[in-house]
């Protein structure tokens, strides 16, 4: 029961994050949305792990921990890129596509 509820929440979070990632223009906002999307995927994975019984399945848990740490590293790289962009161009979004 718990697993299903949080799994459905994860599914909703993926949609919310995806929407923000597409609609938002500010690069930092996109980074936040990307993290929401990733967190939704982790939650889906966590719901699958919870169904394995009391204590959960340790293999997905270990992989989620790996994922959370890598997501932080990617976010830090993203933030450094946004800062660089802001310093070089005075803007916080990449150039729009030509056309």
């Amino acid at each position, binding site marked *: 029961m718990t697993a299903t509820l949080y799994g459905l929440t994860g599914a909703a979070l993926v949609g919310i994050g995806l929407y923000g990632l597409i609609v938002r223009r500010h690069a930092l906002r996109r980074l936040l949305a990307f993290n929401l999307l990733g967190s939704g995927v982790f939650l889906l994975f966590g719901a699958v792990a919870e169904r394995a019984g009391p204590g959960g399945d340790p293999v997905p848990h270990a992989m989620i921990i790996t994922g959370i740490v890598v997501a932080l*590293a990617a976010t830090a790289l993203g933030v450094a890129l946004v800062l660089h962009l802001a310093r070089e161009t005075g803007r916080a979004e990449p150039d729009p596509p030509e056309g």
Partner: protein
Amino acid sequence: MTALWLLDLCLVAVILAVALSAVAARDLFAATVFFVAYGLLIALAWVRLDAVDVALAEAAIGAGLTGVLLLGVTARVHMEARTPGPGRGMRLAIGAGCAAVSVALAAAVLSLPVPAPSLVPAVEAAIPATGLGNPVTAVLLAFRGYDTLLETLVLLLALLGVWSLAPDRLWGGRPGLRHRARPEGTLAWLGRLLPPIGLLVGVYVFWIGSDQPGGAFQAGTILAAVWLLAIMAGLSDAPPVRSLALRLVLVAGPVVFLGIGTAGLFVAGAFLGYPPAAAKTLIVTVEAALTLSIAATLALLVAGAPERAP
């Protein structure tokens, strides 16, 4: 227990409201604060999903490091995006598409196989050979050791990416500006008081990680956060990235891991294998080196690209 069901519903409702607000809020700073709040709430969700190891990592990262990373920079990138976003009709279409993705995922959740597939028996059968009591640590350091090894390399790659954003003349310099705080002030006081406690908590989380929730990643994150606090309080300065000592600490974890893993080829008959008699000692050694490297890598990732000439 129906009360737990009530709690779950409350938690899920607040999580979804906060996530929506983080996307929908007009103000960049408000969106960022919503996201930091989100990290804390997700840590609660992990406890409810019986994943306390994950909850520890999420608490240290989502509620600690992410906040330091994002809230410090919003003032530097507060400029509005100038490219107009998609129009109303387009937003509706995108929203419908994203909702469709969510619905498809929800359908997958509702049709998960019964009984649930599980790797618990496999882990339980193999864990006595590691001498560990915490199955998550056993998976991270032994059963899927190559994942963890590659992950530490990914962290180093990300750090190289951040450093490479420095202009040529600053290469090798110190990240960020020199932080100042009045020596008798509140911040300096906090900066002197918390790091020793944080060090203790970090070592504790590392140490119990062999048998209970905890371990190298959680401890490394805590140590990184504490180091960043000392830097922000002006009590310590970020080291220049050309420093040999720093670079040795950064690679210590992967090198020790790789060394012991390679030795496993000859002693235990497999790369990243451990001889059962010495497994626990070796794993704790690898974990100790990893904790140091993860702490240094994460702290420098958050500190950013070099901004001061060496």
